[in-house]
């Protein structure tokens, strides 16, 4: 399992970091997100590329778990 912390980063950095983590191939990838826009972007990128995304809200942030 690898972890990516995208909290506070501007678009499109959260997606780029997630993409790089997924390309390294150690699944599942856990992604910390602080805003809705990167959350939607990461979800769209992952689902478009055949991954499954689970979302868990932690206070006013989110943890996404990406698996095949």
């Amino acid at each position, binding site marked *: 399992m690898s972890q990516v912390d995208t909290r*506070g980063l501007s678009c*499109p950095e959260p997606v*780029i970091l997630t993409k790089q983590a997924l390309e390294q191939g150690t699944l599942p990838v856990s992604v910390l997100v*602080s805003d809705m826009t990167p959350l*939607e972007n990461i979800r769209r990128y992952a689902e478009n590329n055949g991954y499954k995304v689970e979302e868990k809200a932690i206070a006013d942030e989110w943890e996404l778990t990406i698996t095949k």
Partner: protein
Amino acid sequence: MSTKRKATLIIIIAGAVAGLAAVILQHLGNPGNMGFCIACFLRDTAGALQLHKAPPVQYLRPEIPGLILGAFALSLLRREFKPRGGSAPITRFVIGAFVMIGALAFLGCPFRMVLRMAAGDLNAWIGLIGFVGGIYLGTVFLKKGFSLRRSEAQHLSEGLVFPTIGVLLILGAALGATVLAVSESGPGSMHAPVLWSFLIALVVGALVQHSRLCQAGGFRDVFLIKDLHLLWGTIAMFVVVLIANIWQGSFNLSLTGQPIAHSDHLWNILGLGLVGFGSTLLGGCPMRQIVMAGSGNSDSALTVLGMITGAAFSHNFGLAGAVATAESAGGVGANGRWAVIIGFVVLLAIAFANIRRRKA
């Protein structure tokens, strides 16, 4: 309907409504191919506030507070209003200023570029080459690890400053505050009624907030992750305005005779190149910056203030493109050319200086 289809539908609706808003506002009195233009409206507002003294471009555009407050209201309703800031604020201010200088060399932001393209203005199609090229350059740095680092959560009061400025601006426009400068001729003198400008922009601001519509992001995502999602918004906007122009007989495929434009091709390309490059480094086009600022992002708020400052510099130092007329070809003068070149040098320096090894 799947979440993905729903999101695509929302962004298409947002782009289409934004395009329609521009068509309606032009009917109601806004200048030619300038029903909506973020760069032009920030410039006119800077003029109204007498940050520059160019007589033809002074008018407090109610569309600006409309966008801010539309985004603010919907982000509150959807519980997405989040005060955040502190990601390289002064760097963002400077990039914002040069994005504006580039836009005013071309005579329009990406929104107006699309309006001009859809009216047959071939100068804007030429400018598009620069816009896309600038975005591509930005993605090269993003792939190399460019980052303006993290923003942090801020106190509620910090997030409320920009929406409060929006309230003061619309009050100033609605009450016709006599301290504000108003153009007697030129683009600043052409405008829709205050209430309509404000209400229509409220809707656009809310839709852009909801859909995340971003004109730089559209091309950026195609280059970075081969995703057309955001681009659909811009395509929808183009199609709606194109249909409206053909319907009204105002489609004129030509380099000349276009409203508020010039045919200084190289500088149209480089001006919009600076806009595309800067917007990609910032993470969003000028419209998106206003909407994010309304949603609590004080980095974007500072970027917008940078854009207003850039507009003031553009007109105080003669950097903006001159409009082609029957007597003159117009174009970008020596000062403006140097400013665009300096803009590229500064943005490249910022881009190189902020490449970091990523640690996830």
